[in-house]
């Protein structure tokens, strides 16, 4: 019995040691970076990509005309220079010379025209069609492209960034090959190798990349469904890079890893459907707004990792979070608004939340509920799964909802679709006014930064004074790398494009 026990113990120990030795990272010369992602990619068509994983993975394979840099400046991508005509109705772009697609064919203006036409054609299900819908016609010759717009639209330049604006080869488009595993063909720093559904996406370096060959030999996106497990994999040394969204998981990142904490453009808001009772009453909306301490939400739901914001998160036109009715929680005012609204004894409403969407959402719900209770407002959490949230959100089938919305570097692309009466998400936003409509039109037409600053300040004020939504805070984004990964620059857009400069030693 004793001997048997001994054998068993030795056996288990050997197995463990052998296991540790076996999986210990080999001292290979090849520089292979493994990126942990919680959800598999869901398509290979960059222009239709919407999920974070797909956007990040395909963002390394494809290129766009312009890029958004670390300071959110617009910098050259596949286009090296550009200019608007005086009226802001025509954008001329000059393309980079000598760029080649990964299949070896040359990139030129015909590819740009074909790519943009593909996005504009509703049949192609492109995600960003609405952002460039003002393009009336495209003319291409050699390395010059001219976009003629239906109306003045200076912000369209920023909308040309990103994987949804990927430049595809006109041959692939003509052959109908886009999105097929055999013909993933971009101009980006890495080439697509394979996609093992549910498991991994493998990329290898593109030695002929216009920005210089990347130092990494391969990049593998591996699906590990929970962020806690991804952190474990980072600790075990099997994954070298990950984007973490949960502040609690980020808190556990130890000093043997490098963490980049950066504010993103995304923001958390209590979306209000101001067309539904009781929220069609401005006083009710203001009461809710005044009963909430945003600082407390950040402290509890986001472990302090976030900054209180106003409607516009675009750095150049950022709203001042102090410029709003009740910048600090004010229960006396909240009660006064409630009384004015005809609810002196408080009221009850439902808020739709999808906690699986983002780690902090459930926390925001709990924090808001507890805070509103102090003002006599009962907030019931209506918890749904992701897909249900989206479909009810789109149908505006909610009174209020806690949303994690993406931001844009230009406030025009960010909010036109929500807060202009003809915007395709106006039904969801639940609020519009003639003032807002005219302000947004002015913002589009103006090329002057000072002028635009004033316009978007006015838009912010209009949104806040009417408590169209209750804007809460911008969460921090965490990117974690192994210590031997050097040279990474986080981008606020969430893109991992800067992996092209990353080295491992």
């Amino acid at each position: 019995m004793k001997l048997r026990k001994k054998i068993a113990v030795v056996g288990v120990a050997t197995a463990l040691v052998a296991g540790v030795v076996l999986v210990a990272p080999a001292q290979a010369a090849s520089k292979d970076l493994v990126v942990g992602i919680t959800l598999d990619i869901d398509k290979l068509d960059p222009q239709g990509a919407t999920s974070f994983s797909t956007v990040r993975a395909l963002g390394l394979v494809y290129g766009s005309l312009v890029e958004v840099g670390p300071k959110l400046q617009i910098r050259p991508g596949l286009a090296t220079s550009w200019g608007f005509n005086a009226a802001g109705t025509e954008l001329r772009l000059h393309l980079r010379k000598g760029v080649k697609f990964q299949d070896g064919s040359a990139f030129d203006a015909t590819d740009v025209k074909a790519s943009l036409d593909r996005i504009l054609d509703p049949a192609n299900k492109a995600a960003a069609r609405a952002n460039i819908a003002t393009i009336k016609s495209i003319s291409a010759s050699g390395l010059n492209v001219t976009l003629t717009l239906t109306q003045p639209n200076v912000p369209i330049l920023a909308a040309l960034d990103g994987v949804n604006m990927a430049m595809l080869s006109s041959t692939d488009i003509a052959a109908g090959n886009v999105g097929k595993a055999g013909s993933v063909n971009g101009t980006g720093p890495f080439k697509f190798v394979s996609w093992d559904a549910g498991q991994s996406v493998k990329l290898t370096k593109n030695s002929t990349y216009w920005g210089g060959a990347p130092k990494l030999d391969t990049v593998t996106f591996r699906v590990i469904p929970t962020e806690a497990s991804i952190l474990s994999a980072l600790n075990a040394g099997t994954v070298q890079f990950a984007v973490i969204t949960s502040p609690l998981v980020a808190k556990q990142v130890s000093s043997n890893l490098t963490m980049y904490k950066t504010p993103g453009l995304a923001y958390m808001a209590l979306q209000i459907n101001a067309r539904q009772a009781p929220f069609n009453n401005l006083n009710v909306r203001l009461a809710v707004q005044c009963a909430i301490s945003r600082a407390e939400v950040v402290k509890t739901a986001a472990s302090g990792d976030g900054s209180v914001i106003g409607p516009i998160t675009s750095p150049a036109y950022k709203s001042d979070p102090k410029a709003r009715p009740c910048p600090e929680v004010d229960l006396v005012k909240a009660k006064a608004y409630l009384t004015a609204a005809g609810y002196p004894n408080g009221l009850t409403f439902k808020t739709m939340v999808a906690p699986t969407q983002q780690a902090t959402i459930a926390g925001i719900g709990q924090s808001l509920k507890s805070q509103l209770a102090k003002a006599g407002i009962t907030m019931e959490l209506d918890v749904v799964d992701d897909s249900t949230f989206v479909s009810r959100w789109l149908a505006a089938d909610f009174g209020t909802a806690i949303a994690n919305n993406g931001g844009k570097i230009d406030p025009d692309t960010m909010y036109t679709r929500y807060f202009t009466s003809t915007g395709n998400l106006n039904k969801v936003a639940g609020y519009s006014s003639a003032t807002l409509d005219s302000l947004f039109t002015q913002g589009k037409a103006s090329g002057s930064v000072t002028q635009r600053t004033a316009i978007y300040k006015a838009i912010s004020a209009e949104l806040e004074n009417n408590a169209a939504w209750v804007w809460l805070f911008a969460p921090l984004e965490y990117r974690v790398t192994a210590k031997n990964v050097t040279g990474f620059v986080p981008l606020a857009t969430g893109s991992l494009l800067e992996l092209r400069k990353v080295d491992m030693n």
Partner: protein
Amino acid sequence: MAKKKEVSQRGAVHYYLQSTSGVVGAVLLLFMIIVSICAAMGWLPHNPLDQNIESLLHAPSSKFWFGTDDFGRDVFSRTLDGMRRSLTVSITAVSLAAIVGITLGILGGYLGKWFDMVITRVSDVFFAFPAILLALAIVASLGNAWYETSLAIAIVYTPIFIRVARGPVLSVKEMDYIKVSRILGYSSPRILIKHILPNVFAPIVVQIALSLSWAILTESGLSFLGLGTQPPNASLGLMVSDAQPLAAFAWWTLVFPSLFITIVVVGLNLVGDGLRDALDPARRSS
């Protein structure tokens, strides 16, 4: 060693108290009931939903006996309230599942023929259906108040009761004394209640005890996937699930609710054992 078929009420209690498991289980159960009553009456040091922004993630102290969580809520009060909620969910779910499942299982096993076939088929349909999908469907179409979570768990558990009840009935049915009773022309209800029910009682009691604790864990699994009890309300399962990422720097958020889950699960199972010992005539004589 003659089997004592008729046992007085006092006899059952007597035998129950003779079993160590039963006594320990009863003590734990009593503890849980007291805790739940305290929670239900609001006799708690703090409101389990109150958030104290000044005291986030405090270690256990004289003010917060079990410390506070990441919202500054008192873990002690939440644990007690969580016990109440977990018990409510699990008792509701298992009662529903047991009543429906046992009735259908015994009837199916005893009556046989098409009735048995329909029951077996329908229970197979539900049994073979992934529990998570079922829970998701119920939560999505009804909502997720506590009774809907209970309903989801009940539907998942009903087929288990059908099977557990049906199996022994099939084998008891073929026993000589049942055959004799049938030949003697006793009515079906009489045979069912007098002879079959007592014989399937023991496995069912064990099953109920097991299921009560499973239900608590199933609820915690659903919470882990975001489908169970919804915050800010507390159930033990949800607290454990929420405390996972906190455990590394605030052990008390995980340890205390886990301890209480253990108490519930152990307690319920020991009570089950005690009941089985007390109710099963064969076991008593030993």
